[in-house]
Each structure stands twice: as structure tokens, then as C-alpha cells.
């Protein structure tokens, strides 16, 4: 109960966090519960070809007569699942690299930051295409390759943070008190970086969501799976544009943008909580009426 209340107060602390978690929460709920209400194979072909939205097909049908709404709901689960899973994977890599590189310094840091910098310089999408084209087209391949090409940014941020924190006096104090290195890293430094890790997880998830959808759009996805990116691939390849079937390609992209906005809001909110300078002060409204302030 206390945990729940703590969570609630955290969420309501900041307007952006509130709206953001509302949006993300909605999509997560759809991803978990949505498919339970759908008893139809989303890939089933019917004879109702290219129908615009109607009561029977809320978002119309595509060229194969498949129901776009049903695909969207089922795709929500796939897309969110893989985005979050990849996000977690990326964060694990970046936290490990960032903390080790920043804390240990020396030759370990030299090597790790060199690799990090190389990955920062190389554009992620072309590198991912280069890597993905020779492998089997599955969602897992995409997840692994996206993780492989997107971890560097988070690692760089965490390294910089760790580096500045390593010389903070409380770490030196704990060290001179006789604490072991792993305890210094995980009990003294890491807890202070949770907001950064959270922010980096969210930013990464947005990146990953877009990167996965981008690769799927290029046709590297598993065509037997329904996801937002695969829907876009299908729509584009089957000339939805020329057929004028906006209901086919608009919804999946909109969902990506909305989920991304929700995540972005969460992220901005966390930034504001962590850096009070970004917060809007409550007294601002009063102030405008005050003549004496420049």
C-alpha cells in the first residue's frame, strides 16, 4: 500500500509525468488486454477488400481484406513488447559500460569510451541495415541489432555522470571507510543515478520504437507477425497510397507518434524533477504583475 501511494505521489508530482504515464499506461493496457478480446486471426484474408472505416471494420480493411483495427490492437502488443524488451537490453548494456568505464578509469575506460565513441559516430540505421540484411528475418534479430546499434548514447551519458560522481566526497568517504569497489558502484553511485537511468531508458525506448519500425518498414520484419512497422511495410508495398487507403497507413504511425509522445512527456517530466532549473516556478504568474522585477 505504501509503495502504491509512493508511486501515485511520484506520478502526480508533475503534470507532464501525469499525462505521459496516462498515455503510456493506456497503450500498455491495450497491449496486455486488447488481444484477449480478439478471437480472429489478424492475418485472415476476407473478401471485404479496401473498405473504409465502418461499424463492422472500425478502421476499415486492407487490400487483403484484413481488418486494420484488429491488426492495430494485436500489433500494439508486438510493438510494445519488443520496444520495451530492446529498451531494457540497451539500458543494461549502457549502464554496464557507462558505470565500468566511468568508475574504473584507466585502460578500461580508454577502450570502452573508444568503442562508445565509434558507435556514436556511425549512423545507427545504416549500420543496422548492414547487419540485418544477411540474417533471418525475425523480430528477435531486429531487437538484437537495434540494441547493438543504439546503446552508445546512454553509455556516454552514464559514463560522464559516473565520472563526476566518482570524485564526489561521499564516494571518497565510503572508500576511505573501507567499502569494496562493487559496493561503491552499486550502493553509493548507482542509486544516485536512477533518474538518469530512467530518463535514458525512456529516451532509448523511443529510439528503439522508431528504429524497429524503420527496419520493419524496409521489410526486414517477420511477415508472419503483426506489428505497427510491418503494417506500414504492407501498406506501402501494396500501394495503399495510390489506392487512397489512408485508414491503412495512418493508424499505425499515429500510434507510434502517440506512444512516443507519452514517453517523451514522461522523460521531460523526469528531467524537470531531476533539474529544478527546468521546472516552472509556481510564483511566475504572480510575478508578471510585479513591476519591480526586470
Amino acid at each position, binding site marked *: 500500500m505504501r509503495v502504491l501511494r509512493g508511486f501515485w505521489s511520484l506520478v502526480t508530482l508533475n503534470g507532464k509525468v501525469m499525462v505521459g504515464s496516462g498515455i503510456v499506461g493506456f497503450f500498455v493496457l491495450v497491449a496486455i488486454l486488447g488481444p484477449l478480446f480478439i478471437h480472429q486471426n489478424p492475418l485472415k484474408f476476407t473478401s471485404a477488400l479496401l473498405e473504409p472505416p465502418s461499424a463492422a471494420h472500425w478502421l476499415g480493411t486492407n487490400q487483403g481484406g484484413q481488418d486494420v483495427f484488429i491488426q492495430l490492437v494485436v500489433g500494439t502488443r508486438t510493438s510494445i513488447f519488443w520496444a520495451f524488451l530492446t529498451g531494457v537490453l540497451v539500458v543494461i548494456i549502457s549502464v554496464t559500460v557507462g558505470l565500468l568505464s566511468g568508475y574504473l578509469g584507466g585502460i578500461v575506460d580508454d577502450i570502452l569510451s573508444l568503442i562508445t565513441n*565509434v558507435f556514436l559516430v556511425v549512423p545507427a540505421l545504416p*549500420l543496422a541495415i548492414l547487419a540485418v540484411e544477411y540474417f533471418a528475418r525475425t523480430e528477435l534479430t531486429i531487437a538484437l541489432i537495434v540494441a547493438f546499434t543504439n546503446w552508445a548514447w546512454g553509455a556516454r551519458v552514464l559514463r560522464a555522470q559516473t565520472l563526476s560522481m566518482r570524485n564526489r566526497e561521499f564516494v571518497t568517504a565510503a572508500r576511505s571507510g573501507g567499502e569494496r569497489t562493487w559496493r561503491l558502484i552499486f550502493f553509493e553511485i548507482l542509486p544516485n543515478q536512477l533518474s538518469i537511468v530512467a530518463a535514458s531508458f525512456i529516451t532509448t525506448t523511443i529510439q528503439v520504437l522508431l528504429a524497429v519500425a524503420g527496419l520493419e518498414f*524496409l521489410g526486414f520484419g517477420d511477415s508472419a507477425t503483426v506489428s505497427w512497422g510491418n503494417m506500414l511495410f504492407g501498406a506501402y508495398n501494396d500501394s495503399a497510397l495510390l489506392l487512397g487507403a489512408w485508414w491503412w497507413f495512418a493508424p*499505425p504511425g499515429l500510434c507510434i507518434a502517440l506512444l*512516443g509522445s507519452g514517453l517523451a512527456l514522461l522523460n521531460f517530466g523526469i528531467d524537470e524533477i531531476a533539474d529544478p532549473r527546468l521546472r516552472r516556478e509556481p510564483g511566475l504568474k504572480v510575478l508578471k504583475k510585479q513591476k519591480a522585477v526586470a
Partner: protein
Amino acid sequence: MRHLIRRLSIYLLAIWAAITLNFFLPRFAPGNPAEVVFYRLAQHGEASPATLNALEAEFGINTTDSLWVQYLKYLNNLIHGQLGVSITYFPNNVSDVIGQNLPWTLVLLSVSVLISFLLGSLIGVFMAWKRGSAFDTIFSSLMTFFYSILYPWLALMAVYFLGYSLGWFPFSDAYDVGTVVPGWSIDFILSAAYHAILPALTIVVSTIAGWMLTMRNSMITTLSEDYVLMAKAKGLTSRRVMFAYAARNAILPSVTGFAIALGSVVGGQLLVEIIFSYPGIGYALYQGITNQDYALADGVLLLVILATVFMNLIVDLLYTVLDPRVRQERSA
């Protein structure tokens, strides 16, 4: 100097890593890409056993050369600009295809990235300066939505609504193929500009939010610095305080961010070109991918990586000019 040499070594390593990855991946990947390509060529009726041999050499199959010899040969070919033969545009060389498409990409990319960066940063400056105003609130909301938009989707929407339905702008090709001839004529330039509007708009809209956000946050942090307060206390005009003191410093993290974001912008550009059938290297890449034309696709990707690394170097140089602290380290 130190700083630049360190950066240079990173760039060289990045290029080497990309090239090496490109060499080894097809050799260790499951299956035989040479055969795939060969069968595709066979469908076009352009395959002979000699072609298969050439292809197998390219992918390192059925060759007596050791891996190292192959690697060195591959590097040698690269240095001489030989990226192999394209199947899609058979019998053209990949380098010729890229050479034809590259200018379109470069012009479109540089124009739209510059507009996006400058405009986004400028809006960010004003958002921070007028924090809490209607201007800030409206752009903040827009920024949140466009922050995480998928390039190809935005492109599809633009093509469908602004191009296809309303018919305001052309939405395929880089110029009116039927009526104008490429050259330095007014007609051609106007036509090219007209055709570039939608793709450029797509790139600007999908990247601008990032610059706005970076600049706004950085500017807010800078505005609370003492030197901005002192500039105000000195009685300088608002414009001077805002630009010469606050924005001039706030732009520094933005420039660093610019380098990092370049990669994703370039990736986005490739996708946008596909949707607009814009004859840049993104379009060539798509041809390569859909036709399993590995030589073409890999050539484009390598070039893109190389170009991005090069642009990073330019941004680094720019940063050195902008920040005297780094400049001093260079001379030290």
C-alpha cells in the same frame, strides 16, 4: 590539437570498423548470398558461370584465397572506388549508380538539416526566453508530438494529404521528368526546388523538435548562469543578452548534439527518399534491399557511414571554433 587527434583516431576506427563489418558479415552469415544473387540475375537472363564466379569471389565463397588475402583485396578495391557490380542496374558499377544519385541526397539533406537546426534552435531560444508564455506552451506541445515521429509515416501522410489528395506539391521524382532537362537552367532549378519541398518539409518537421528541445533546455540552464545576470546588470539590450551571452553559450551542447543526431537524420533521409521516390542514394538503397542487390545496398551504406563520420569531423572543427576553451587545449 590533442582533442582533434583523439577525435580523428575515433573517426578512422569507426570507418575501419564499418568496412570490416561489411566484409565479414556476408562471409559468416548463414546461407549463400552469391547464389541468391545469381538466381536473381538468372531471372533477368544475364547470368553466366563467370558471373557466378565473380559473385562468389565477392562474397568469399569457393575461393582458394585465404580470408586475409580476400580482405586485403577487398580493401584495395575499396580504395580504388570499386564497390562491385549492381544487379539492379546491371551492368552498371555500384559506384556509378551512387555517383548519379549522391548529389540529390546531398542537396536535400544539407538544406533540410540546416533549416531544421537553425529554425529549431531559434525557436528553442525564444521558448526559453519567454518561458511559460503561450508561445512556449504551444511549441512545447507540438515538440512533444513531433519528437517521436516516424519519418516514413510522416512522409506517407505528406504524400497522401498534401500531394495526392490536395495536389499542392509533386510527390515523386526530383524534377519534372517529362518537361525539363537537367542542367543549370532556371526551369530545372525551379522544378527541382518545387519537387524538394515535400521531402524537405518532412525531414524538417520530423527533426526540428529535437533541436527545439535541446536548445530550450540548454538555454534555460544558461539563463540561470551568473554571466547572463551580469549581462543584464550591465544594461545591455535584451537582444544582446539573449544572443551574445545566453544563446552563444547554449548552442555549444546543441552542436555536440548535432554531431550525434546526424546519424539518425541521415537514416531518416534514406527512408524519406524511398517514399518520395526521390532519386537519391536512399532510393538506391531501397532498390538494393528489395532486389537483394547486396553490392548496391552495402555500397550505399558504407558511403553513408563514411559521410556521416566526415560530417562529424566538420562539426568537431566547428565546435573548436565556437568554444575558446577547447581551442586553447588544441594549442596547448
